[in-house]
């Protein structure tokens, strides 16, 4: 394990792998973990034994994250594996996501909290449709930074033309998706070139290794790095009412949007009642100001009617209170979504019955264009209109991830059937 010298000042980067099946996502993560010595000796031995038992060589790096029996049988990733790594420079939370179209919901689960996507492309095959599709979903979810691995470069003889072709394809796609940085690194996950250890195999490449690029990428929570709105005000969805033994109440939740300070004027939505923050209790005791990401409980100067599902908003821009939503929807269920369908909608800490009133368009992920359609099939992305039974205090997803997102739940089975982002698709907004 890495010595824990400077953990206190170390920052945290959350990233998700994106790419088509068999392009080597899990192998790259395995290589990254092995070469930075994140694995314990007995874990390496266990992977070696499993590899030999299944006849896939001495050490199948993909087995490090493909931990389920069915995954090892088929040599694919079915669900997200979360791994944790620390180098002297930074801490990482890694979501190794599946590449199959069948497991898009799992991929979206892994990418929904990512700061960055590590895109893996098979250099012998170029950018596949599935890679475009998943990168498009990652972009819709708000991922704006990518690092691209041109993998299996050893199989091309480290061919510069193969590398250049991927750089070109990636540049084009990144531009359409509104993605900011697109470093393309020629690597061999199998042999280890340019993953952690620099390699001379690609003489034409002088950029960073994958690890160096991951260490240099800007980190930070999505909500604080994205949006970039100076006027952003606090959003505190109320989770729970704490009744104090000596009398009095406080409202528990996690701070988002902007920090919250004692004395600040706040509005409670959807009621619209206003008050001031009297005190903020945190896991460390009372604080004067609570930053984004801190779980707190807040007491107010006035005795208002506040319950779970309400949103406490700081001074500044207010969210919209509405029962009519337009949203970008990722449909995960194997049933067809048609207008008139009823679900339970969970938005922040509030759940309400909801009716899909219209399906306005489908997003064609290849053309990145909206096409009129009246139904959505599994893994389709569409623009829909929804009416909710009780009003919600919402922001556009591009403005705030927490107040801009929701899920639809089948009321019979309680299964999450869709993920929704309020407003038009993020990546089309920029065109």
């Amino acid at each position, binding site marked *: *394990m*890495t010595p*824990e010298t400077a*953990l*206190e000042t*170390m920052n*945290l980067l959350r990233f998700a792998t994106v790419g088509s099946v068999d392009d080597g996502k899990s192998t790259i993560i395995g290589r990254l973990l092995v070469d930075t010595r994140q694995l*314990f*000796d*007995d874990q390496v031995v266990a992977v070696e034994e499993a590899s030999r*038992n299944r006849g896939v060589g001495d050490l199948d790096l993909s087995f490090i*994250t493909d*931990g*389920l*029996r069915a995954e090892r049988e088929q040599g694919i990733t*079915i*669900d*997200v*594996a979360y*791994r*944790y790594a620390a180098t002297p420079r930074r801490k990482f*939370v890694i979501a190794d996501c599946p590449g199959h179209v069948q497991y898009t*919901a*799992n991929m*979206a*689960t892994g990418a*929904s*909290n990512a700061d960055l996507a590590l895109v893996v492309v098979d250099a012998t095959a170029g950018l596949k449709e599935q890679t475009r599709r998943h990168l498009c979903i990652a972009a819709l979810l708000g991922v704006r930074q990518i690092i691209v691995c041109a993998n299996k470069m050893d199989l091309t003889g480290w061919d510069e033309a193969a590398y250049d072709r991927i750089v070109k394809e990636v540049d084009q796609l990144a531009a359409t998706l509104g993605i900011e940085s697109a470093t393309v690194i020629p690597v061999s996950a199998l042999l280890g070139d340019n993953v952690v250890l620099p390699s001379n195999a690609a003489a034409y490449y002088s950029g960073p290794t994958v690890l160096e690029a991951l260490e240099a990428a800007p980190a*930070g*929570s999505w909500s*604080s790095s994205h949006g970039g709105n100076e006027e952003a005000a606090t959003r505190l969805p109320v*989770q*729970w009412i*704490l*009744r*104090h*033994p000596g009398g009095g109440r406080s409202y528990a*939740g996690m701070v988002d949007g902007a*920090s919250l300070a004692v004395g600040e004027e706040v509005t409670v939505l959807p009621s619209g009642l206003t008050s001031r923050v009297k005190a903020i209790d*945190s*896991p*460390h*005791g*009372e*604080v*004067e*100001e609570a*930053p984004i*990401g*801190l*779980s707190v409980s807040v007491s107010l100067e006035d005795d208002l009617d506040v319950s*779970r599902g309400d949103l406490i908003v700081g001074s500044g821009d207010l969210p919209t209170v509405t029962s009519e939503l337009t949203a970008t929807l990722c449909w995960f269920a194997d049933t067809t979504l048609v207008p008139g369908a009823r679900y339970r909608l*969970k938005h922040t*800490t509030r759940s309400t019955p909801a009716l899909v009133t219209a399906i306005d368009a489908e997003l064609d992920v290849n053309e990145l264009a909206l096409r009129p359609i009246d139904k959505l099939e599994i893994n389709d992305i569409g623009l829909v209109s929804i009416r909710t039974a009780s009003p919600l205090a919402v922001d556009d997803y591009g403005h705030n991830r*927490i107040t801009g997102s*929701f*899920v639809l739940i089948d009321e019979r089975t*309680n*299964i*999450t059937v869709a993920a929704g982002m309020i407003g038009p698709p993020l990546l089309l907004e920029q065109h």
Partner: protein
Amino acid sequence: MTTTIPTQAQALDSLDLLESQAIFIFREVAAECERPVLLFSGGKDSAVLLHLAVKAFAPAKLPFPVMHVDTGQNFPEVLEFRDALIDQLGERLIVASVDESIARGRVLDPGPLGSRNRLQTTTLLDAINEHRFDAAFGGARRDEDKARAKERVLSFRDAFGQWDPRAQRPELWQLYQGKVNTGEHLRCFPLSDWTELDIWRYIERERVELPSIYFAHPREVVERNGLLMGVGEFIHPEPGEEIREEMVRYRTVGDATGTGAVRSHATTYPEIIAEVSSARISERGATRGDDRFSDSAMEDRKREGYF
């Protein structure tokens, strides 16, 4: 007491973020589920879990009871610790006993020295049914095992208590959804993103109390299947095994028949953190007989309804 916390989000260190996230999960589940319960083994992870639960609902009491699945083969230090801690907190403790499951004929008695690890699943599921719990908080971490690395924070169990790793609910953003139908339940893992080292750094920072066996002490041990087993009520030397006194500590705490000690001189938090930082063997690999059965021992047990 007022402390000053810097106002930038980046100023929350990684432990602060993990702590706040765990508290968020506790509050979501308590609000969404009707009858949650917190599973407490007396080990370090469940000590941290309980510490965080108390923080999530302070100054009020916990809105759910604490439950110990008692294998009947405990380290005495762990039971003492459990009772003292619950007493001090003034919370409700339910003990679900494997001995009772054996007495009622629910499971076969593996004999006085046999492993009861797998039997706990029946005791746990019976207790969940009996008390009609719809959510059970556990201290499992994704860095512990490759099957756990795949599991959602709120993990669905069907009416038979089974986990289906191929059909997990999507879990996006901070939207943890906790509704289940009658007879089904959730396992909830607020420590999902914590590593072993995070746990120790947090224990040190918060001065979380632990059973004494986590700190180095002299103990009579025998070496068995590569594990150092403490000689006591449940471990007797077998022919050919030699009893030695060694300085050891426990890196995990489970059933006394299945949990091994590690050689150690670490008696303080910083010494333990230094030891954990430089360890080359994983905590389960170093200390648990139960995970060594097969390549997918944990996945198989989890499918049946294990912790």
